[in-house]
């Protein structure tokens, strides 16, 4: 019976300690997570550095320009008329090659300019009145 008394004491103290340590851990983790969330929110609210915005903007603008216009932007190097002509021809040839590679040989229109056969038939059928056969 003496041993059993010791056992009961061990159980009460032991479970109490386990709960106490884990509750403390849970509270600390919750507080840490909340602080982490706040720090994250603060970082998200801050505007991006100006230089980064400018870089992004200029990259986007550059993407929309034609190769000739892109070259024109570079003030430190002015290509000659021959160079510009060569580059223009090269870009045009490249576009043609890409188009040939991406489309059947007999295609006469740009990809996407016309609906596919399946789509065309589907659209046509939508315009017909449905009749029971």
């Amino acid at each position, binding site marked *: 019976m003496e041993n059993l008394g010791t056992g009961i004491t061990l159980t009460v103290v*032991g479970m109490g300690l386990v709960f106490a340590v884990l509750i403390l*851990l849970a509270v600390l983790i919750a507080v840490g997570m909340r602080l982490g969330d706040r720090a994250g929110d603060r970082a998200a609210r801050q505007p991006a550095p100006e230089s980064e915005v400018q870089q992004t903007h200029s990259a986007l603008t550059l993407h929309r320009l034609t190769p000739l216009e892109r070259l024109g932007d570079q003030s430190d190097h002015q290509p000659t008329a021959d160079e510009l002509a060569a580059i223009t021809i090269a870009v045009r040839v490249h576009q043609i090659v890409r188009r040939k590679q991406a489309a059947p040989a007999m295609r006469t229109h740009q990809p996407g300019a016309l609906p596919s056969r399946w789509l065309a038939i589907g659209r046509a059928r939508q315009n017909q009145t449905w009749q029971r056969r």
Partner: protein
Amino acid sequence: MDPTTITPLVQGIVSITPGAALMIAVGGLLIYLAIAREYEPMLLLPIGAGAILANLPLSPLVGPDGLLNILYQAGVGNELFPLLIFVGIGAMTDFGPLLENPKMLLLGAAGQFGIFGTLLLALLLGFDVNEAASIGIIGAIDGPTSIYVSSRLAPHLLGPIAVAAYSYMSLVPVIQPPIMRLLTTKGERHIRMQYTQRTISRRTRVSFPILVTIIVGVLVPMATPLIGMLMLGNLMREAGVVDRLTKTSSNEIANVVTLFLGLAIGSTMQAEAFLQLDTLAILALGIGAFALDTAAGLLFAKLLNLFSRVKINPLIGAAGISAFPMAARVAQKVALEEDFENFLLMHAMGANTAGQIASVIAGGVVLALLTR
């Protein structure tokens, strides 16, 4: 040819005892369970092999300079192997679900009641306090913790305790579901829990293992080796800068140590030490420990529901044990049986990882209370 020439040749046959033969059969059974049923094969296969090797007549492997004896002294007698395995476990565990919902730690704490409940039952059966605590630690459902604690408190019971811990761990999917169904109503099993994934910053993930080690180390110094190694592995994983160490800890080191640990544990299963009534009692108490853990987790989750605005499905309470990720999967499976669209897995994973930390702390608490 005189009889002295023949004697060494038949020495093995004449030295075999019924007890040793029975233990060889037990070893064979463990190997069968590992291969045919895939019950914790990584551990049960080496344990079974160790048991057979240790019980072969006149086996030099268990002599003073025998391999099994050396392995035991090198890694189990000084608690090295369980601690190395903890580094690997830490390196493999993602504590993310727990960080998302730290309340789950309470379920992990409740899941340790089996340790103390079994301790009381063992005392009632006549074991002394240290033995009872070692048996109770089976309720941590954590092999390395069981080995670590029992090798310090009752090394003579190490064999049956390790066998019970590992073989029952693989039986979690069999032991838990009936208790889960018995202690919960259909309505409770239907409770759905919202899951919204929170982004956990790298800083939080990295500071978590450091914080846990310091807090637990200060509050329960006896748990420092266990929690320290577990969290070291996790720190390496989350830091992301020591991939080689993380991979080595979770693969090579964990695998090599598991093999050595299994063989060393198997070598403690020698007939004269293992074939005792105590062994049967330990095996029976081991099942009791698992059942008590499950029941305590479920009932504590139900208790939380009385005070909580957001209802918890009690099934995840049963996952607050260290058997990772099996217990979480079992909770999910039982929930799906009732409601095909009830997804509790992430909540159960949180409780399950909480159970891992809680079992280590409980082991440290037991050692702190009993080591003089």
